[in-house]
C-alpha cells in the first residue's frame, strides 16, 4: 500500500463513504451539528462530531454542507449587514424595546476589542517565553533558528538538551509537513544543515523543525515544532 498523504486521504474517504448506518437514531440532531460550529461550543462536542462523521456518511455530508457555508460566510464577512438599521432601531442585540444610546455600544465594543488585543499579546508573549525559557532537564528547547526567524543558508540548528540523553534526531519539514530531512543520530546539541539539504530549501518558503531525544531508560521526548523561513541568497558585489 502506498502510504502518502494523497493516497491516505483517498482510502479514508472511501472508508467513510461506505459507512452508512442502518438508522439515524444515533446521529446528532441538526441543532447539535449546527452548535458544533459555534466558537463557544465545547471541544468535547466538536471532537464527538469529528469522530461521528468518520463513521456516518450521512452526517459527514451535512457537516460538509455546514462547513462550506461557514467558509463562504467568512469570505464574504465584509458585506455590510443589510438589517443594520432595523437592529439599531430595536436596540442592542436586536432586543425588543427602546433603543440604547449608540455611545455605549461603541464604548463596549472598544473595551472588548482592547481586551481581546491585550489577551492576544499576552498569550504571544507567554508562548515566546515558554519556548525560550524552559529550564534544562524538563524538555528540549529549540534555540536556533528561533520561532518565526528568517535566515540564509547554511546555518546550524541548536537546542538545549535533556539530561541523560543518548542521542537526538532532528526532523525538518516543509510547509505541508512533508518530511524534508531526518538526521542520523546526533550526539551534540547542534548540527550544521547538510549542504545537499540546504540546497533544496527554497528562499521565501517556511519550514518546520523539531528534535526528539532518545534515552536508554526513559521514553522518547519531543520538542515543539518551530518554524523558520529561508531568506533569498545575498548578492555579492563584483569586487
Amino acid at each position: 500500500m502506498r502510504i502518502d498523504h494523497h493516497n491516505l486521504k483517498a482510502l479514508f474517504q472511501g472508508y467513510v463513504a461506505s459507512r452508512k448506518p442502518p438508522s439515524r437514531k444515533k446521529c446528532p440532531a441538526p441543532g447539535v451539528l449546527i452548535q458544533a460550529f459555534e466558537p463557544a461550543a465545547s471541544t468535547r462536542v466538536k471532537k464527538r462530531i469529528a469522530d461521528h462523521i468518520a463513521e456516518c456518511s450521512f452526517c459527514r455530508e451535512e457537516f460538509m454542507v455546514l462547513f462550506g457555508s461557514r467558509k463562504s460566510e467568512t469570505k464574504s464577512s465584509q458585506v455590510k449587514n443589510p438589517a443594520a438599521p432595523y437592529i439599531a432601531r430595536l436596540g442592542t442585540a436586536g432586543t425588543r424595546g427602546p433603543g440604547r444610546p449608540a455611545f455605549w455600544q461603541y464604548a463596549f465594543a472598544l473595551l472588548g476589542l482592547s481586551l481581546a488585543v491585550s489577551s492576544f499579546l499576552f498569550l504571544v508573549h507567554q508562548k515566546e517565553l515558554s519556548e525560550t525559557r524552559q529550564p534544562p532537564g524538563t524538555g528540549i528547547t529549540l534555540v536556533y533558528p528561533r520561532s518565526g526567524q528568517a535566515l540564509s543558508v547554511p546555518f546550524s540548528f541548536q537546542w538545549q538538551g535533556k539530561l541523560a540523553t543518548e542521542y537526538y534526531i532532528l526532523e525538518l519539514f516543509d510547509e505541508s509537513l512533508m518530511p524534508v530531512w531526518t538526521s542520523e543520530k546526533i550526539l551534540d546539541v547542534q548540527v550544521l544543515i547538510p549542504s545537499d539539504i540546504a540546497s533544496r530549501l527554497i528562499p521565501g518558503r517556511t519550514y518546520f523543525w523539531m528534535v526528539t531525544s532518545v534515552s536508554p531508560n526513559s521514553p522518547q521526548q519531543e520538542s515543539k515544532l518551530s518554524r523558520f523561513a529561508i531568506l533569498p541568497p545575498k548578492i555579492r558585489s563584483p569586487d
Partner: protein
Amino acid sequence: MEPPRRRNSEFGEILDAYAQYINLQVQHYDLPKYGLDPEDILQDVRIRLWKILSGERTIVSPASYIKKIVSSAVIDQLRRRRRENELFRHEKQKYILEQAVPYSGEAIRKKAAEEAVGKAVGRLIDSRRQVVKLYLLNLTLPEISGYLNWSLDKTRNLLYRGLADLKKSLRDLEDENENRSS
C-alpha cells in the same frame, strides 16, 4: 397576549428588514450543488419564523436566530431528500447487484486497504485522532484549527504526530501480512 394583527406586522417587519440577510445566508450554502432548491429553504425559514412569532416567543437576537433557522432548514431538507431517495437507491442497488460481475481482485484489495486505514485511524489516541480524521476528509490545517478552536501550532503538532502514528501502524500491519503470507 398580543393581538394577531400586531404579530402579523412584526412578522412582516422582520421579513422586510432581514430579507437580504436571509437570502445571503441561504446563498452561503450553494444549495443547487446538493440538489436543493433555495426557494424551498426560504419558504421553510418563513414558516419557522412565523411559528416562533405566533407561539408568543421573543426573538432576542434576530440575526443569529435567523442564521440558526437557515442552517437547520438546510439540514432538515437534506435529510428529507435523502429519505425520498432511499427507495430509489435501494431499487437501483438491487439492479446493480443482479447485473454485477463478481468482485475483482483489485476491488477487494482496495476495500481491504480502505478498511485498514479506517480502523487504523480509529485506533489513534484521542487528541490526534480527530485532527487526522478532519485532515483526511480534506480540511486544511487552518480550517481544522478554526473548527476545533485550537492554535495553528497545536493543531499542526497533533496532525504531524497523528499521521506519523498512522503510517507506522499501517506499515506494521503490512509487515504482519507479509510475514503471514511468507
